[in-house]
């Protein structure tokens, strides 16, 4: 049987169709949970935000107007819930959203490439990114989304997305370089 698109499912959900809700949940849940967990590092909190996100989808399906992709809309809801969570629990981590520590010198390319392959180094460095930066990296490199869609999800200008990805990538490069330096 042909799988219905998320947009069609949302249309049905708006009419109270629980089967469509289950189908949408099963088609998006795993990706969405990964996205949420990558920013919270707490599986219980991530499960709660996932739950809240889908409850919002259920309640607000009628408001979805199809101006963006359905998955973009759902990721956007999740992103805002994550940021609300940070505002309530870890406001310090949201300070200075556009700033990352300056990168001093240009790290050695071969060293960085090597560190990137080390899963534990990469995870450590990803975890050090502030939530807004981690989000755009995940959306760019795990979800492979265009910058326009990412801008819709995180509700900021397209230029800001590009700048955030640029700074996040530089911070990762620097962190990976340091990790390799420490390991030597």
């Amino acid at each position, binding site marked *: 049987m042909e799988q219905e698109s998320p947009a069609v499912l949302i249309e049905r959900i708006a009419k109270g169709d629980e089967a469509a809700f289950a189908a949408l949940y099963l088609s998006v849940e795993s990706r969405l949970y*990964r996205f949420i967990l990558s920013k919270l590092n707490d599986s219980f909190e991530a499960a709660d935000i996932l739950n809240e996100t889908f409850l919002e989808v259920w309640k607000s399906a009628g408001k979805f107007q199809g101006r963006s992709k359905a998955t973009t809309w759902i990721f956007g809801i999740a992103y805002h819930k994550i940021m609300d969570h940070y505002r309530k629990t870890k406001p310090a981590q949201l300070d200075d959203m556009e700033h990352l520590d300056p990168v001093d010198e240009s790290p050695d390319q071969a060293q960085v490439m090597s560190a990137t392959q080390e899963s534990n180094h990469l995870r450590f460095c990803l975890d050090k990114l502030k939530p807004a930066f981690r989000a755009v990296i995940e959306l760019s*490199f795990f979800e492979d989304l265009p910058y326009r869609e990412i801008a819709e999800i995180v509700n900021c200008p397209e230029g800001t997305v590009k700048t955030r990805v640029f700074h996040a990538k530089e911070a990762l*490069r620097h962190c990976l370089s340091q990790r390799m330096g420490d390991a030597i």
Partner: protein
Amino acid sequence: MTKQPEELSERELHQLLPFYVNGSLEGEELDAIKAYLAGSEEARQEVAFLEQLRENIKKQPQVNSPGELGLKRLQREISRNETLRSGKGEQASDLARKVQLSARAGVSVWWRNLAVAACLTLVVLGAFSRDVWLGDGGDMHLAGSENTAHIQVTFKPQATEEAIRLLLLETGLTIKEGPSTLGVYRLDAETNAGDETLDGILQRLRSRKDVVETADLE
């Protein structure tokens, strides 16, 4: 205003590289990046780094999502919310039934008496007509001509019926009406309590933030 790809600075082109690597660029932007890469060794090195970064981010360990369990949780909550919205008296009688069952299991005579009183109150009130809940302006108010002070309560969506039941028993309250379409319950104190006692009960309700969303004297 959006710039044409041929107007992009080197920095702007550089910032598009991640989206070249993830395959989401198209049209003139893609052509501009291809031209940029053809003429810049630094850009090609950057692409190699980004490709490896992307590949290894995708290789990060899979996470176990809530899956079917998460769906069941959602379905329970949606069903509960729908019931709260449409059930009104149904919920109250269910609660009363549970209170009665609890009394039968009987932890103490005091609890049993209280539970019986709760059931009686609900049965008597069931015969009353309810003509209230939303004013013209959408504000909540309850009809009725009694002089008795009442407490209006809303419960947390995640509060279980068991937790609500226990709290009502502990505080000597019975459900007089509710829930309204906005989930508001109207509660009566078990005894002829004065204002001071009601204030005390109110404080106890408000302190149970895990169960009670709002509690106000009517």
